């Protein structure tokens, strides 16, 4: 901006100062612009966050807050007994859900993104088609799939029987061994477009010259993907993993719609959010507010901790790329 040649150094410095001042808005303007968002954030995020922490440390009789309870509400979840078993069972299901989703949804998303990146014909159409289920509420998706998978009226088993695959017409949502994988597949069906879009955007950001240069050197298509494309996608993979983790730990709607608030059958699809839902809203215990808040705090600490750790690991991986 400031021309150095033929101008005294004093004027140059003044000019630089002025230009810096004009680039940084005044504090008053900053406060004015940030206040609405900050107010909303405080009311809807910060306040509930701290109030539930406070709720979890007190005794309750209905909506009446009694005395300080210390860690009593947490003991319900952490002491040996049914509630700890249920907590661990739900936690295990969340982990399986995350692993399954990463395996299916993220891998497919990456595959679709790579294939679509190369293809010209129908790219827009396919991108839209894969992302379309996003526009439907997970409750609706879960409900529709539970109808399609129903053994009495469902289209899936009727179709399988119709083409002679009788042995594959299984009780998808009613067998404890199948129910969680089924929900994972339905969830992945809905969200596969999300990693696909992120990976697609990241692929578009990789200069074509890298691949061309490698090919000139005699690299096969797989080698180009393995040695060039994939490493450059690591930041996007990290982002997708963390978002998938947070999303999966908080998953509730699709499972609620397909398997009910109990995570049926026989608790085989029970996850942390369902456990929270039952403790908070289906629990006749007058101390329900404290008990459910304690569970929410435990979930927050875990999800936040793991995500922070994941981001740090991710940064280190990115650092190696630089």
């Amino acid at each position: 901006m400031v021309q150095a040649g033929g101008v005294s150094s004093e004027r140059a410095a003044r000019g630089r100062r002025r230009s810096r001042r004009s680039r940084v808005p005044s504090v008053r303007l900053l406060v004015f612009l940030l206040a609405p968002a900050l107010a909303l954030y405080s009311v809807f995020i910060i306040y509930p966050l701290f109030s539930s922490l406070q709720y979890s440390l007190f005794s309750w009789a209905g909506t009446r807050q009694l005395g300080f309870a210390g860690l009593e509400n947490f003991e319900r979840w952490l002491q040996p007994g049914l509630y700890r078993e249920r907590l661990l069972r739900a936690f295990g299901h969340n982990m399986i859900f995350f692993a399954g989703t990463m395996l299916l949804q993220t891998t497919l998303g990456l595959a679709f993104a790579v294939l679509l990146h190369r293809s010209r014909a129908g790219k827009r159409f396919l991108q839209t088609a894969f992302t379309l289920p996003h526009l439907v509420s997970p409750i609706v998706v879960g409900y529709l799939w539970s109808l399609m998978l129903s053994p009495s009226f469902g289209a899936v088993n009727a179709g399988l029987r119709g083409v002679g695959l009788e042995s594959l017409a299984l009780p998808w949502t009613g067998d404890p061994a199948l129910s969680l994988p089924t929900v994972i597949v339905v969830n992945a069906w809905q969200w596969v477009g999300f990693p696909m879009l992120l990976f697609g955007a990241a692929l578009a950001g990789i200069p074509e010259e890298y691949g061309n240069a490698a090919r000139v050197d005699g690299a096969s298509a797989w080698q180009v993907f393995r040695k060039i494309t994939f490493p450059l996608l690591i930041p996007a993979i990290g982002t997708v993993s963390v978002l998938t983790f947070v999303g999966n730990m908080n998953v509730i709607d699709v499972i609620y719609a397909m398997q009910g608030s109990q995570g049926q059958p026989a608790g085989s699809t029970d996850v942390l959010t369902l456990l929270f839902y039952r403790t908070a809203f289906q629990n006749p215990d007058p101390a329900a507010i404290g008990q459910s808040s304690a569970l929410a705090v435990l979930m927050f600490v875990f999800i936040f901790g793991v995500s922070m750790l994941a981001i740090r690991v991710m940064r280190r991986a990115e650092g190696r790329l630089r």
Partner: protein
Amino acid sequence: MGRRTAPRTLTRNSASQISRSLLAAGCAATLALTACAPSTEGGSAGDTTKLTVWSWRTEDIAGYNKIFDVYEKKHPGVQVEFKAYKNTEYPTILQTGLAKSSGGPDVAQLKPFGPIQAFIEGGNLTALDGKVDLAGWPEEVVAAAKGKKDGKTYGVPFAIQTLHVLYNKKIFADNGIQVPTTWEDLKAAGDKLKKAGITPMATTAKEPWVMGLTHEIFGATRMGGDKFAQDVVAGKNDFTDPDYTASLQTVADLKPYFPEDVTAVPYLDAQALFSSGKAAMYPGGAYELGPFKKADPGLDIGFFDAPLPPGAKMDKPVTPGFADGSYGVNAKSPNQKEALELVKWMATPEFGQLFADELKQISAVPGVSPKDPLLAEMIAKYRSQGEPYSMAVHFGYGEPLGRDAEGEAIASMLLGKMDAKAAGTKIQKDISAWFKPEE
């Protein structure tokens, strides 16, 4: 996976920025679940006192308006406003409404047994002892509105649900089947229907509460009815009792007559199987008649009470039933006198008859009989051979609810993952997480 942000290009920096901000939002959403609920206004103006009644029965608005018109005519100066909220949102809305110092309801519809306890212990309700006369009401009906700790009454029960085996009269006639009076008859009818390509009984083990009710319908006489439950409450018995586990087996043995893959059948499909004439019988409550009649007004429904299974501890069939909820007075209502007057009226035969006829449900007021012949017959059975639905009356006070623990264990039995003994042990363990027998 839940957020939809798709930047066109994703650089290293923006990638981690996005992940960090979305992460914070995602995590916070977990905690934010615990807060928030809407509110409404109420109160009195001028000479007329306006009473607000809150309910979860959106389908009953027109009926209640007619009922309260009758009340308003007899009580000049009082205006009753009936406000119904969505069933699933009602508990949260009511919790906030009763906690507020003003603007809540004057009279509120309260869910029975367990859920009312939090309001009682929170001091949100006015005790009705000495103010409303419920003498002569069955004990297990009033229990729906009683404080578990203080034993006081906080509501006037409004409806009773009775449990039976509903059946499609046309299918029975077409297949030459008589209403079964013995367990052998029931099984023979099931076999005959199955051969004819009809599902004998529509039900679902996917919803634990449905299996809990099914157990009460078929197993109550095998376990010894409410006597068994009372013994458990008194600490004289528990759910590992051989007669109780045999009653679980009674239900599991009916598996051949249930729909295929019964643990995968959605509740709505179970209803649809019966209302579409694909299934002949439906173990369920009086509350199912409405939805069935709506699905097919021409459906000719009859009912019977389950015959005695082999080894039954009781000598004749029973009609299980439970109170479906009550009306109580908000302790913070400024119109205590008028609100009490209204719930007092809700305990009279006049209200009971209006309730039964306008809303086509079974009134809890003793002596009242609905115009609908089927409902009238159901309540007559309940009055002559009624038995409290013990899982609701005695074991609905903690998480997991008794009926859910029972239904889940039966589902495991139907899946072949558990025998009756293991199921009993599991139910005992689940309920013991919060239930302590009386000393």
